[in-house]
C-alpha cells in the first residue's frame, strides 16, 4: 500500500513533482558545478601563473660570477663552466615530471654584426624555441614559447633546427632590420625570421637556436643555464627544511611533495654537476596569489551551496504546503502521523535522488562549459563528488521538507479538508 501510494503520487501529480524535481536539479547542478570549479581552480590558476615565467633556474655547480648589467655581459662568454645539453631531456625523467610545464636552456654569446656602416659587437642568446625532444618513450616539446609566454614575435618563430634568428626590437630598429632580411653574424649570413619584443634585455639582442650560439662559441653541447617552469605547491614549514637534516620518513614526504625546493633538489639529481635554485620573485609570490584566489572561490562556493540549499528547501516546503488537503484526507481515514510523515519523506528521498542524479549530470556539463570557456581546458571532476553531492541533496531535501511536513501533519484535518488555513 505504501509503495502504491508513493507510485500513484508520482504518476498523478506529475506537474508538482516535476516542479520540485526541477528545483532540486537546478540546486544540485549549481552546487556540483561550483564545487568542481572550486576544487580545480587551484590547478587552473597555477597554470595561469606560469605565465610569469620560469620559477627555477639550473646553473653549473662551479659557476663563476655573472658580470652583467642590463643584459650586457661584461665577462668573456666562453669563461666559466657549462651544463651539457644532452643531459637536459632528463628533466622529464624526474619524480615530478608531470609538474614540469617546460624548460628552456640559455647560452649567451657575443657576435660581430657586419652592416653597411661597419661592424659592431652584439649580444646573442641561444635557446630552444619549441624544440621536440624525447626522453625514454616520452615525446615532448619545450622552449621559450612555453617558459617565456610574454615574448612576442612579429613574423615567425625560427625552427630550432634552422640557422634563422630573431632580432630584438630595439636592435632591429637600430640596424634597420625587418622580418625576412639577412644579417651577417661573424661573417655568416642568417635570415631574420621575425622581430622579438620582450620588454626586457632581449630587445637589444639577437636570439637564435642554441646550436647557432654553440657554434659561435665553439662549444658544441654547451648550455649556460636552464630555466624550468614547474607547477608547485605553496611553501610551508616542511618545504623550507634542509633535506640533509630530515629523518627518512620526513624526507620521503618532502621529496614526494611538489615544493619548489624539492623539485630543485630533483633537478640537481637529474643533471650532473648542476645547481638548481628557485627564482624567488616568481616562486615566492605564486603561493600568496594562489591561496587568495582559492580562498575567494571557496567562500563563493559556500555562498552558492547555501543559496541552492535554500532554493531546494523553499521548493519542497511549497510543494508540501500545497498538499494539505491530501494530508487531511489521509488523517481523516485514520492514517497515523508517523505513516503520513514516512510517506512524504519517502517521496522527498525519491525526488532528491532523481533530481540529484539529473542535477549532477547537469552540473558536470556546466563545469565543463565553464572550464572550456574560461580556462580553455577540461575541469576534472573527482568521482567521489557524486556520492557526496547525492547525500547533500537528500539531506537538504529532508531538512527543507521537515518543517513543512511537521506543519502539515499537525494541521487539523477538518480545516484542511474545508480548504482553510
Amino acid at each position, binding site marked *: 500500500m505504501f509503495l502504491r501510494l508513493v507510485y500513484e503520487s508520482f504518476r498523478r501529480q506529475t506537474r508538482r513533482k516535476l*516542479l520540485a524535481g526541477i*528545483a532540486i536539479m*537546478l540546486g544540485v547542478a*549549481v552546487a556540483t*558545478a*561550483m564545487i568542481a570549479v572550486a576544487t580545480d581552480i587551484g590547478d587552473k*590558476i597555477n597554470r*595561469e*601563473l606560469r*605565465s*610569469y*615565467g620560469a620559477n627555477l*633556474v639550473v646553473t653549473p655547480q662551479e*659557476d*663563476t*660570477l*655573472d*658580470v*652583467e*648589467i*642590463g643584459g650586457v655581459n*661584461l665577462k668573456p662568454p666562453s669563461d666559466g663552466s657549462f651544463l651539457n645539453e644532452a643531459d637536459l631531456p632528463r628533466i622529464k625523467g624526474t619524480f615530478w615530471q608531470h609538474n614540469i610545464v617546460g624548460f628552456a636552456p640559455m647560452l649567451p654569446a657575443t657576435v660581430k654584426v657586419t652592416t653597411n656602416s661597419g661592424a659592431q659587437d652584439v649580444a646573442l642568446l641561444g635557446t630552444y624555441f619549441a624544440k621536440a625532444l624525447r626522453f625514454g618513450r616520452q615525446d615532448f616539446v619545450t622552449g621559450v614559447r612555453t617558459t617565456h*609566454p*610574454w615574448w612576442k614575435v612579429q613574423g615567425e618563430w625560427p625552427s630550432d633546427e634552422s640557422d634563422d634568428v630573431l632580432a630584438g626590437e630595439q636592435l632591429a630598429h637600430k640596424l634597420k632590420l625587418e622580418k625576412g632580411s639577412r644579417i651577417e653574424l661573424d661573417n655568416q649570413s642568417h635570415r631574420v625570421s621575425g622581430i622579438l619584443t*620582450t*620588454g*626586457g634585455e632581449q630587445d637589444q639582442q639577437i636570439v637564435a637556436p642554441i646550436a647557432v650560439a654553440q657554434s659561435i662559441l665553439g662549444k658544441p653541447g654547451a648550455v649556460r643555464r636552464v630555466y624550468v617552469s614547474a607547477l608547485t605547491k605553496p611553501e610551508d614549514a616542511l618545504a623550507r627544511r634542509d633535506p640533509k637534516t630530515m629523518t627518512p620518513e620526513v624526507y620521503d614526504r618532502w621529496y614526494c611533495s611538489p615544493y619548489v625546493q624539492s623539485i630543485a633538489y630533483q633537478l640537481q639529481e637529474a643533471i650532473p654537476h648542476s645547481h638548481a635554485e628557485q*627564482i*624567488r*620573485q*616568481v*616562486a*615566492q*609570490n605564486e603561493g600568496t*596569489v594562489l591561496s*587568495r*584566489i582559492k580562498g*575567494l*572561490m571557496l*567562500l*563563493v*562556493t559556500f*555562498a*552558492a551551496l*547555501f*543559496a*541552492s540549499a*535554500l*532554493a531546494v528547501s*523553499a*521548493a519542497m*516546503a*511549497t510543494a508540501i504546503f*500545497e498538499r494539505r*488537503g491530501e494530508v487531511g484526507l489521509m488523517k481523516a481515514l485514520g492514517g497515523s502521523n508517523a505513516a503520513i510523515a514516512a510517506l512524504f519523506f519517502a517521496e522527498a528521498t525519491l525526488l532528491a535522488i532523481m533530481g540529484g542524479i539529473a542535477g549532477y549530470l547537469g552540473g558536470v556539463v556546466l563545469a565543463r562549459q*565553464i572550464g572550456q570557456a*574560461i580556462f580553455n581546458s577540461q575541469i576534472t571532476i573527482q568521482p567521489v563528488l557524486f556520492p557526496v553531492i547525492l547525500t547533500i541533496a537528500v539531506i537538504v531535501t529532508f531538512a527543507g521538507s521537515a518543517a513543512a511536513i511537521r506543519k502539515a501533519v499537525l494541521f487539523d484535518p477538518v480545516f484542511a479538508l*474545508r*480548504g*482553510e488555513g
Partner: protein
Amino acid sequence: MNSPAHQAHDVAGRRSGRPHTSMFMRMIWRAAVLRRGRALSALLAMVVAAAAATAMLNLYADVQAKLRTEFRSYGANVVVVGKDGTSLPEDALTRVESELGGRGMAVPFSYVVARTGAGQSVVVVGTDFQRVRKLNTWWSADSWPTSPGGALIGNRAKAVVSPSLTPFTLTFQGRTIEIRPEGTLQTGAAEDSRIYVGLPDFEGWTGVKPSTIEIAANGSAGEVEGTIQRLAQALPTADVRPIRQIVEAEGRVLGKTRAALLASTSLIILTAALCVLATLMGWVFDRRRDFAIMKALGASERLLNGFFAAEAATLGVVGALLGFVVGIGIAAWIGRVNFHAAVVPRFSVLPVVLAGSVVVALLSAALPIGLLRRVQPAMILRGE
C-alpha cells in the same frame, strides 16, 4: 488560530477608532500581518536572494582592486632607464614620485663593475635599502644593512669576495672603498652575483648617478598605461617601459579569476532568483481564496492585479533593502577573511538589486495570477 468572531470584533473596534485609512493599504498590511508565517518565509527568501546578489556584485566589483594589491608583491611593473645607457637626470626620482602621487613606489638603482683585491670583476649596485625592501618582498636577506657603509652581498658573490663576511675593498677607476658586509641576499636571479651598497656610499665612491628606476605603479592596466605616458613626458631623456613579464601575466591571471567569479556570481544570482520565484509563487497561489472572495465581491481585474502587484512590489523593495544591508556585511566579511581588507560598499549596486528584486517579485506574482484568472471564483471557494 484566530477565531473569526474574535477577529471581526477586533476589526470593528479598530475601525471605529481609526476613521478613514485607505482600504487598499489596509488590505496589503493585513495580508502581511495575518499570514505572518507565509509572508515571513517569502520575505526571507527575498532577503537571502538580495543579500547573495549584493554580496556577489560587490565582491565582483572590488575583487580586481583587492587582487591587484596582491599582484604588486611581484614587484616593479614599470622601469625607467636612461636612453642608451646614460644616467638619469639629477631630479628623476623626485619627478617620478610626483607623477606617481603616492599611487606606487619607485626605487633607484645605479650599477658599476668594480674589481676585488684579487682582480675579480663584480657588479656593484647602489640603491635605497629601505625602498627596495618594500618593493622586492621576495628578496631574502638574513639582515638588512642599516648603517652607512654597510652592504648586502649576493649569495654567489659572497663565495667569491668574502666567504666569511669579513670587510673587503673594491676598486673602481682607481678609487677604492671599504665594504662592510652586513647581510647575505638570495633571490635565485642576477642579484645573487651582485653587491648592494647604499646610494650615498655608492655616489661618494664612484660619482655615478642612478641609471635605472624601478616602479611599482598601482591601478588597472589602463591606469598603469597612463602613468607610463605621463612619466615619459616628464622624463624626455629616459626610456619608460612596462615590464611585460609582470604586466601581461597579471592581466591574464586577473582576467581568468574575474571570469570564474562572474560565472559563479551569475549562477548564485540565478539560483537565488529561482528560490524567490518558487516561494513567492507558492505564497500567491496559497491565497487563491482571498483572490476568489475579492472577485466574488465584485473587484475588477485591474484592482486585483494592482493589489497583488503592489503586494509583490512591496515585498521586493523591503526584501531588497534588508538584503542589501546583509549582503554588504557578507562582502565585507569575505574581504576581511580572504584579503585582510574590507570590501568597500558600493551603493551603485543598490538600484540594480532593487530593480532585480521587484522584477522577480512581480514575475512570481504574475504567473499564479494568470492561472487563477481563468478559474471561476466559485470553484476556488469550494476548494477545488
